[in-house]
């Protein structure tokens, strides 16, 4: 017999699939613990609670109000600050400057990326500017800003714009470059051009990168603001959260210093989890562009 004939000589096999009732488990609800464990915010809250307990425990062990106040003392200071309205005024002062700088930074970044995608020389222009200024810490510009704009919000907005614009422009631009060629061809197939093409194809397609840029820009702006307020505070009467921290340090009101820091953290957490997370859930996650 030939080799092939030997291989062919085995009979065919036919089988009936078993009824699924015979299997042990086809589908079974998860246990309550597994269900709870699957809730993202619950896991994060748990982490926060653990951190709070560790803080409280550590501070009590250390037992030094001046170096490291307890969590309870900090919360107490925070509540006093909030209820007296003192802290609220500072928060508002900081947020106002922050939003102004952030908004202007985004607008400028949009203009720069528009120049960047319009032509090849525009791309070079954007890339050169970004590589020049992105590594430059915004705080380093503060002395110059003080000379140009004087003591006041003008200087703060200037450094904020600097801290936001490059991060946003860089991410948006790399997002545009990453848009797949097929999608570009689809857009052109529809006869879209110019602003329509950018608005309806490029921006949504690059949205994951744009959102990342906005997030990084927000964090940079926050950091820069608090840091420059600390420097500023020495010479300026009214100020925001940074000034609040600096002022209380001078008066050795350490729980207030911690309350100020906690406020910065809380605002960061709220913006990250409420604003950006909501934006992500309703855009890039819904579209399956990000897991």
């Amino acid at each position, binding site marked *: 017999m030939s080799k092939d004939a030997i291989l062919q000589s085995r009979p065919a096999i036919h089988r009936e699939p078993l009824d699924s009732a015979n299997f042990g488990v086809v589908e079974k609800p998860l246990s309550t613990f597994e269900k709870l464990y699957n809730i993202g915010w619950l896991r994060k809250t748990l982490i926060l609670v653990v951190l709070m307990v560790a803080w409280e425990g550590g501070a009590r062990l250390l037992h030094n109000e001046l170096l490291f106040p307890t969590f309870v003392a900090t919360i107490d200071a925070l509540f006093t600050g909030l209820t007296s309205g003192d802290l609220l005024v500072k928060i508002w002062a900081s947020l106002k400057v922050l939003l102004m700088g952030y908004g202007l930074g985004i607008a400028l970044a949009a203009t720069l990326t528009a120049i960047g995608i319009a032509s090849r020389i525009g791309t070079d222009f954007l890339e050169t500017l970004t590589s020049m200024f992105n590594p430059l810490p915004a705080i380093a510009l503060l002395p110059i800003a003080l000379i140009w704009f004087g003591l006041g919000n003008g200087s703060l907005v200037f450094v904020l714009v600097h801290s936001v614009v490059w991060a946003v422009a860089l991410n948006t631009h790399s997002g545009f470059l990453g848009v797949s060629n*097929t999608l570009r061809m*689809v857009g052109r197939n529809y006869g*879209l051009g110019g602003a329509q093409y950018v608005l309806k194809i490029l921006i949504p397609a690059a949205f994951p990168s744009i959102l990342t840029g906005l997030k990084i820009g927000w964090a940079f702006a926050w950091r820069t603001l608090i840091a420059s307020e600390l420097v500023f505070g020495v010479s300026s009467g009214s100020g925001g959260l940074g000034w609040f921290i600096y002022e209380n340090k001078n008066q050795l009101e350490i729980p207030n210093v911690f309350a100020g820091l906690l406020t910065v953290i809380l605002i960061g957490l709220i913006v990250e989890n409420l604003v950006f997370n909501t934006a992500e859930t309703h855009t890039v996650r819904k579209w399956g562009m990000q897991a």
Partner: protein
Amino acid sequence: MDMNTQQTDLRPLLDVRDVTLQYKTKAHLVTATYRVNFQVFKSDRYVLLGPSGCGKSTLLKAVGGYMTPTEGEIRLKDKLITRPGPDRMMVFQEFDQLLPWKTVKENVMFPLCATGKQCGKAAEDKAMQYIDKVNLAKFANHYPHMLSGGMKQRVAIARGMAMEPDVLLMDEPFAALDALTRRKMQDELLQLWDDTHFTVLFVTHSIAEAIKCGSRILLLSPHPGQVKAELASTPRDCADPRAAKDLEHEIHKMLFADTIEEKEMHHV
């Protein structure tokens, strides 16, 4: 040949005359096709067939308006093609051709609205009509990432057809699908054609697919692409199963007669 293609008028819908296409890579100027001639008539299922490197996809891109010929001209309804436009809807091979931020329905509606053809309720009705034709009515509100590859291609076809373009351009639309889905999609495409008799220009490297889906087949030789033959496919109602096999054999011989020592060249 199908009866319908014979009764249509004698002026070609799409006229490709002496088209030479060249593109530049980092190091070379590559001639993709050399003086290619062909005419597509209304309701043709016209297939561009050839081995890789015969410039068939480049040719389709030129018809799509994404490339300008260095020699010759391409005319659609006597109008010179200079840029991409919605009168030639493209269906690409890639699954990422749908806009991920739009649902199936919105994806089909978008070009209707963006080109100012139809908007609002009318566009929605038309979109649903074609989504229904490709059997995806149940998935109209799904986002592309929830669909399988075959379903995405069906949406892309519905999107192309809803625009009712002069000619539908398909660039190996089923090449990225598994063999079973691919056969199903070919049958569905033919059913759709039976419904609306649209004109389609179809690129493939599968001889069997060309014979099954095409009414006319243009054979191209590689490096650079030149027309080797233009054949009529076997009629779909042909009773003799050997006819298709014979044609397949004939095409195979023509394509591979002089390629005993064919070197695979890759231009990136």
